[in-house]
Every structure is written in C-alpha cells, then in structure tokens.
C-alpha cells in the first residue's frame, strides 16, 4: 500500500486536455519525479493535488484516503506541502515570519487568546518558533532570519520557500521545478538538500523537474509526461532511454 496514488487523473480547460488519464503511485520515503516538455501538464498535476484546480475525472489518494475533493486549505493539514515554480513567498515579511506561516496548521491559537496574549498563546507561539528555528538551522538560513524576503537573492528565496514548506512538517512534499532559475552549483546544493530532506526528515518527495542531471541524481522513479499523457515510468535511466520520451523531447 503506497503513500500516494493517482488514478486516471484528467482535467480539461475548455477544449484542451491538460492532463489526460494519468495514473501513478509514490512509495513512502521515495523521491518521485515528473518530467516532460513545457506544457506537458506537470504543474497542472501539482495544482490538482494541492486542489487549486478540480480534476474532470479520476481520483487522488493519500495514505489510503480519497482527497480528490478536499478543500485547498485542508491539504496542508493532511501533511502535503508544496513549493511553486516561480516563487510564491510573502515578500513583505521577513524569513522568520514566512516560515512561521508554514506552521499555521500546527499553531491553532484562537483570536481571543492572541488579542489577550494568554499564556496558552505565548506557549504555542514559542513552540512554533522553536520549530522554525530548527528548520532555519537545517537549511542554514540563520544569517537571514530577520531580512525581508523581497530583498533576498533568488537562490535564497527558493530555500526560504523550501523551509516554509518544511514547516508544515509534511509527509509528502511537492517541489515544483526546485532548480529553475538556479546556477549549476546552486542546483547541486538543492540536490543534496532534497536527499537530506528525504533521509534526515524522512519526507516523501514528489517533484517536477526538467534538469536531467538533478533528476537522475536524486530520483528513485521518474514519470515522463507529454500533452497530459503518460509516456513512460521507471528509473531515470529507463525513462531516458525510452524512444517515446526521446521523440517527445526532440519534438516530432
């Protein structure tokens, strides 16, 4: 029984079939990567999983539970966190606050206790800050704790977004093109972070990525997608050798 399953998932925007009957399973503790040319529907799958869009058909199961219709803001509390292709951080807040937002589902203080600063509130608040502090250490963001995110360089902001996702303390982490906009060196770092997250924090990872070096470096299984259809699934090596995939990338 795998941690996460997608069955015959399909979504149509007007006439376009963005995702067209895709099925796959992600084993607990594995790193599963979706690849494919631009517009293949990779991000769309993420948006379906994090419930930003509704699927036209098919089902999504997480820990054996059907989450195809849960509300978008419920996904996090189930233990699924995500990052975004072009960073979606809270630019006017500092790193600390951004990551604290990640703890949202775990803090659960009532408005009244916040206004009156009840001990219960203070204690909860401190817990979550401890938690955030751990993540900041883990990602080595100590130096930037108080700097406004909007003023940080791109690479760091990616890390902050990663940290925010981790603050949800997810069982499944969705990474949307973690390497996009990074240089070679940064990409390698990201690679090792991803592995650490799996190995140290034991988080299962589902990612969309196009940098094949990164993909083959970290992925246990790879799924190739084109025009919303599944082309091939298997190890990085297998998929890369698959003729269908090659022709898709060469585009004929």
């Amino acid at each position: 029984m795998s941690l996460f399953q997608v069955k015959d998932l399909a979504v149509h925007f007007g006439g376009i079939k963005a995702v067209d009957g895709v099925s796959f399973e992600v084993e607990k503790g594995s790193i599963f990567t979706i690849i494919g040319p631009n517009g293949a529907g990779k991000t769309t799958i993420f948006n379906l999983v994090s419930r930003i869009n509704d699927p036209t058909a098919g089902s999504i199961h997480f820990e054996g539970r059907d989450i195809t219709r849960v509300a978008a803001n419920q996904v996090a509390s189930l233990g699924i966190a995500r990052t975004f292709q072009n960073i979606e951080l809270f630019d006017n807040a500092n790193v600390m606050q951004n990551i604290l937002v990640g703890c949202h589902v775990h803090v659960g203080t009532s408005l009244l206790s916040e206004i009156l600063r009840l001990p219960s509130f203070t204690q909860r608040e401190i817990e979550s800050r401890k938690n955030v502090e751990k993540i900041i250490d883990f990602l080595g963001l100590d130096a930037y704790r108080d700097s406004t995110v909007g003023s940080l360089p791109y690479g760091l902001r990616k890390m902050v977004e990663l940290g925010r996702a981790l603050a949800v303390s997810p069982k499944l982490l969705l990474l949307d093109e973690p390497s996009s906009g990074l240089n070679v060196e940064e990409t390698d770092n990201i690679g090792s972070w991803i592995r650490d997250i799996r190995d140290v924090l034991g988080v299962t990872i589902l990612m969309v990525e196009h940098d094949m070096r990164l993909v083959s470096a970290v992925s246990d299984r790879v799924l190739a997608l084109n025009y919303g259809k599944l082309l091939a699934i298997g190890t990085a090596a297998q998929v890369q050798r698959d003729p269908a995939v090659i022709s898709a990338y060469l585009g004929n």
Partner: protein
Amino acid sequence: MNEFLQQLVSGIAVGCVYALVALGFVLIYKATDIVNFAHGEVMMVGAFLGLTFIEILKLPYWIGLLLAIACMTVFGMLLNRFLLRPLAGQGILAVIVVTLGLSILLRAFASVIWGPETFALQTPFYNRVVRVGEVVLSQEHVAIIVLTIVLVAALYAFFRYSRIGIAMQATSENQLAAYYVGIPVQKVHSLIWALGAATAGVAGIMLAPIAFVQVNMGYVGLKAFPAAVLGGFGSIPGAIVGGVIIGVVESMAVLYLPEGINNVAAYILLLLVLMVRPQGLFGIQSKRRV
C-alpha cells in the same frame, strides 16, 4: 400603460447616458487595465466644454458638439500621457486611489474655470415633444437614444473594419502579442483614451439638457460602474445593455417601488451580479495561474 411606456423611454434614455460612460471606461479598462473612477468627471468636463462652445461662444449646437468631442479626444490623450501612463504596472489600489484623486481635481478645476453655479445648455430639441399615439415623449430623451444607437453602430463598425480598430482589439486581448506583431501599443492606448473620453463627452452633452451642467454631475459615473459590471466588465455590448437595464430599473423603481429603492437599485443589482455571477451577463471568468 402610457405612463409605463413613457417611463420606459425616459428610463432607456438615462440608461443610454450610463451606457456611454460605462462604454468609455470599459474600453479603457480592456486596453490598459486601468479602472478610471474619474470617468464621470471626464464626462462632466465634456459637458462643460459643450457649454463653452454652445452657450458661451454661441456656436451652433452641432458644431459646438463636434468641437467639444474634438477637445475631449485631446483631453483623453493628455490624461493618458501625464497621469495614467506613469501608473503602468502599479496595482489596482494605486489605480483606484489615483483616479479618485483625479476626480477630486477635475471637480475642483471645473469649479474654478466655470464656477460652482449650475448652467443650462440649449439644444435643438429643447422642450419639444414627440407624440406616438397617446404616448408623449420628450425629444431630448428620443434624441439621446438615437444618438447613442448611431454612436454605438459607428464604434462597432470602427472596431470591426478599420485597421486601427482591429489593432485596438488585439491590444486589449493580449498586449504583449500585439506588441510583438508590431502594433504601436502606446499609440493605441492614447487612442483608446481619446475614444473613451470622447464617448463620455458625448454622454455629458446629451445629459446636459435634462440634468443641467454643474460640477457634481460626474456622480453619474458611479452608476456607470454597476452598468459595466452588470454587463461583465470588459464586454462592450455588455456595458450598453447593463447601462440601459440600470436606467430602466431606476426609473421604474420610482414609479412602482417603495420610496428610496430607486436610489440604491443600481447597487443592489451590482451586488446581486457579483454574488451570483461575478463574470456578469456577457463576461468570461479567468483564473490566475501559478
């Protein structure tokens, strides 16, 4: 029955004024993403220009009308150049605040230039009536409706057939693409503004004989917005229909509904639309992608 028909006609007439103002800022919104909260005041300026040419300079009505329209096109371009182009890329809040500020300024300047009093604007239709059987219609109302139909038809033809008109549509659909295929986006924008201001000007001059010309007549703009939303912002036929609907509903409300409803009818409509069908009667909804 006659009462109903007469009210229907005057409702439509007032609705046409709303419609023209709404049309103006829908044009502008589609092309430049700027919601001009000062469009009612732009209309007011148009009315005052009409007043200047027709009453003060004593020019014949039609010539005065044309001159006023000409000035309005220039006025629109100037607004675009000096106030709204700097706004490009600013957020909606900035746009709202700046255009609200603009509306305050226009009112202020108008009252300095033309004075705070109310003025009458003579028209060829002054106090004449058309009799259709039992029904007595004021020529001013009929004139407004006819003029609006003509104007809308002209605009339709312009967008449909003229090269620049098509360019404008393209720009409204997708600025970047338009830019790539070599449409001079900036120029198109200022033309759109010219057009928007001109239609508003016409609306103002047509409104003048029934409502008189005065600094606060721009509040009509507040009715034009519900009109635009009702028709699904960004849809031009929508704006027209929306305007007429609101005009009619208001004037019927005075006759057949308890006191006060007519004052808020437009806004109740707007809220209903936003709650039930935010994309309006004609619009299509778009979702932000991540």
